[in-house]
């Protein structure tokens, strides 16, 4: 690339036009050398053009340079000067400046981007706490030596780790440092006029000439000037109609219009980068103000959106847990459909539909929640993320008095919905009892004598219970999960480890508990829905910024930024020489076509007929 050696030009400023009227008078020292350097020029041009060569050459150099300069970050390919040349000034301020320049340079941005890609990899190789907490536990038991090391390195929390955060934060600081100056420069250039026409268009892209014959008798009359102006005015109109911003420059000998379009490209680029920052901020802020919670609801039961009603609850740092938006949901029914015909997919779920009654602000309404169709209510989204069976179990004491009656959710263990649950009866019997139950919606006896479920729907429901006695630990004031039973301190009284066999019940059946404790009844089975309730106030913002990212990307990659010039020069024989050329600023594969099209349309406008792609005849 040719590097002009003249002084720096501030982007967008106008070089004083001293070529007016001077061309013919000036003695030109550089004439002969220039004429040799340039590609052979058309004879007709030469007479008038060579006289001004030296001066034009200087202009051209500045034009070309100015065209290249942009407020791009350091290291951008279009930069005029290499940053190896810039010496850091000594002193604290100098060093800070130098560091800032390094951080906001193109090369650093690239490095940080690639680093970010590499840093994201480990998190996909080992399970993450956020996505797969059980996986982390399993991994720990499988790799007892490696685990503590990786844990120290925060590999199980890769995406919140110090090192990962450091990379993306640096990247975003760099990004802001990049975008702000560009924004300022862009606003300036939006206000400025297009830079004036270069003295020589020959070297620009898509250069072409049209000679309009018989415009005037000679090259000097007022007539000729008027023709020139008219031609340029029409070119200006044409360019304006094509979305160019234009400025007309006139000299004694020629008139030209300088035009630029595609400012949207830079706008898009800046919008894109700014929207990325927007996403980061929205996500960050959202984390503080959002909450997620889970709740299992058996059909017929209700959920009220207050803290105590959650089975688990994860609030962001700034969430006021005392004032969740008040509403309640009652699960009327949960309908599940399974595939029963396709032999390759017997028992795979086809549909889950939860019919709920919502009460909010005293208004009652019926709603449906499905997978992929969450219910939006009170600023939260309610998702149906799980389901299962809840056998209804009644325990009576020896006197026949019911001491326990409930639909107990049994989380499922496999695709055939073999489900396991726990029943705790602390009061009302002679001793506290705990039962571990297995529920088989379609029970099938295996050769081992054990049961398994062969189909997820309730075709042959069976409930098997093993019974333990002892202290359930419910009175110690320590919270205990309702879904697990700590059998270490309990004595089994029914089941494989005890004299009495496990209690197997079909719906409606009642059987005696061992040791004359009483009876247990399997009344029937309900379904439960596992609801996730999420509140994220910035989710919409994230989406908005994401759309801006996409929009910015589209405009910045597909809107061509280009300059275009049309110059009219009156020639001694009275004809008008029209020159057309363009300059790409960034990727612009269609520039040549654009210049050609403008030229054709311009000629068509001037002559009232289309020259089309002039049928070329060989010379």
């Amino acid at each position: 690339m040719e590097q002009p050696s003249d002084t720096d030009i501030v982007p967008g400023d106008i070089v004083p036009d001293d070529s007016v009227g001077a061309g013919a008078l000036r003695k030109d020292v550089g004439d002969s050398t220039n004429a040799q350097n340039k590609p052979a020029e058309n004879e007709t041009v030469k007479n008038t053009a060579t006289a001004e060569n030296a001066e034009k050459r200087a202009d051209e150099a500045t034009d070309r340079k100015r065209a290249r300069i942009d407020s791009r970050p350091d290291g951008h390919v279009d930069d005029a000067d290499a940053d190896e040349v810039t010496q850091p000034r000594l002193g604290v301020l100098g060093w800070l400046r130098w560091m800032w320049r390094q951080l906001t340079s193109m090369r650093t941005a690239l490095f940080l981007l690639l680093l970010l890609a590499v840093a994201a990899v480990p998190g996909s190789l080992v399970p993450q706490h956020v996505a797969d907490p059980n996986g982390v536990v399993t991994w720990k038991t499988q790799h007892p030596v490696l685990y503590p090391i990786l844990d120290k390195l925060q590999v199980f929390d890769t995406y919140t780790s110090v090192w990962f955060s450091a990379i993306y934060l640096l990247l975003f600081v760099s990004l802001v440092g990049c975008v702000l100056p560009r924004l300022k420069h862009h606003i300036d250039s939006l206000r400025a006029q297009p830079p004036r026409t270069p003295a020589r268009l020959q070297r620009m892209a898509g250069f072409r000439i049209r000679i309009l014959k018989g415009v005037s008798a000679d090259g000097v009359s007022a007539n000729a000037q008027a023709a020139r102006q008219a031609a340029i005015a029409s070119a200006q109109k044409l360019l304006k109609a094509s979305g160019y911003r234009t400025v007309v420059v006139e000299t004694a000998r020629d008139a030209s219009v300088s035009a630029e379009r595609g400012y949207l490209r830079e706008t898009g680029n800046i919008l894109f980068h700014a929207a990325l920052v927007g996403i980061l901020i929205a996500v960050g802020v959202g984390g503080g103000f959002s909450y997620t919670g889970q709740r299992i609801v058996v059909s017929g039961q209700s959920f009220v959106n207050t803290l105590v009603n959650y089975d688990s609850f994860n609030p962001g740092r700034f969430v006021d847990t005392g004032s969740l938006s008040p509403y309640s949901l009652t699960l009327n029914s949960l309908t599940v459909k399974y595939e029963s015909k396709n032999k390759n997919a017997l028992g795979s779920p086809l549909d889950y539909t939860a019919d709920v009654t919502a009460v909010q602000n005293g208004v009652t309404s019926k709603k449906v929640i499905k997978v992929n169709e969450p219910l939006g209510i009170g600023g939260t989204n309610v998702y149906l993320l799980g389901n299962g069976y809840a056998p209804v179990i009644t325990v009576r004491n020896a006197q026949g008095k019911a001491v326990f009656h409930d639909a107990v959710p049994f989380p499922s263990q496999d695709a055939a919905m073999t489900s396991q649950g726990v029943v705790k009866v602390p009061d009302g019997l002679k001793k506290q009892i705990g039962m571990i139950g297995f529920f088989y919606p379609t029970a099938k006896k295996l050769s081992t004598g054990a049961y398994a479920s062969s189909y997820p729907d309730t075709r042959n429901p069976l409930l098997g219970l093993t019974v333990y006695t002892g202290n359930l630990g419910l009175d110690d004031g320590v919270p205990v999960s309702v879904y697990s039973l700590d059998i270490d301190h309990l004595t089994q009284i029914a089941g494989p480890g005890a004299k009495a066999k496990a209690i197997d019940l079909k719906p409606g059946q009642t059987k005696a508990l061992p040791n004359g404790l009483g009876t247990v009844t399997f009344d029937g089975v309900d379904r439960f829905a596992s609801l996730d309730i999420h509140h994220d106030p910035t989710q919409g913002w994230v989406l908005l910024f994401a759309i801006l990212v996409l929009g910015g990307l589209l405009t910045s990659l597909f809107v061509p930024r280009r300059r275009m010039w049309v110059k009219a020069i009156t020639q001694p024989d009275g004809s008008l020489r029209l020159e057309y050329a363009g300059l790409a600023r960034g990727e612009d594969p269609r520039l040549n076509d654009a210049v050609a099209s403008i030229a054709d349309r311009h000629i068509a406008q001037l002559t009232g007929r289309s020259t089309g792609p002039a049928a070329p005849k060989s010379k």
Partner: protein
Amino acid sequence: MFDTLSQIFIYVTMGLYACAFIAFALDLARRSARATIPESVPSAVSRRTAAAEDLVFVEADGDGVVDAASSVSTSAQSASGGSATATATATATRSGRGSAVARISERIEGDVHTGAAMSTSLRVAMILTITGFGFHVLADAGRGIAAGRVPWANMWEFSMTGTLVIVGIFLLANLRFDLKYLGTFVLGLVCILLMIATTKYYVPVVPLPPALQSYWLVIHILVAIVATAFFALGFALSVAQLAQVRREHRVAADKPTRLRFLATLPKSDTLENLAYRINIVGFIAWTFTLIAGAIWAEKAWGRYWGWDTKEVWTFIVWVIYAGYIHARATRGWRGTRSAWLALIGFSAVMFNFGVVNVFFHGLHSYSGLTS
């Protein structure tokens, strides 16, 4: 029934593609031969001269016809090269002193947009590819009818549709640019992918699980497939670019060159520009995939981003290609280095599909395969 038909068609497709691959390879071999007999190539100078129309005389007054059309060859621009290329090309043309090989390259350069005269093997290859593509469409449609939904809900279907789109975009792109020299690569890749898919990924038609029952399945995955297809083409161009750069260096150093057919391909700058243009289309589609995936995840799983393995790799691919775009705008990285990033990017795309889906656990386990 339809699924069986679909399978039969896919085997027919594979057969045709394999033949097309061979024909494309023969064409490359022919190009190697052609590169050694430069005299047989029609002069580039005459064609270009005929095409150039820098200077046109027009009658200003009234109704005469275009007076004369003559041409000078100042600054003849190659259709897509940077101005440096163009100038070099023009110089070669003007001086007529360019080596024979340079002239051939230049001719191809000019053909990038216009389409060259095809060799017999190339014509046969294109016909085979188009016929194969027809069967491919039938196979894909058959699967869709058998399943009663869009045919891209598990890895088998994704492979089938994905390869279909790769070939489709290859054919489409050929309407605008002459990319036929990529045929060997594209058909080779597609054959391998289909081979792996038929032996490893086939699953019978099963109904969609509730989590996949969404219009986002149509949008999100289709756009992902399109993005993948563009990245595949971009990858091929970048490989060609790297090979071409090597060759150009060897030519410049007067060393013997090996892959001689490269002499009949566009210059490395042209290849790079094409690769870039194709890759950015892929990148935009990928960006959309990412966003659409997040929207869907929010609906289906209750959060828009959860660093699930598949999400992580989609993100990694995106960042690598963002790196590629920046590299191309960074001094010292344009050209060879950024091309390498495009290769890494596409490898990540393939990894994301072939490895992450099958061997990594996560919410995205929709491969339909049971391990």
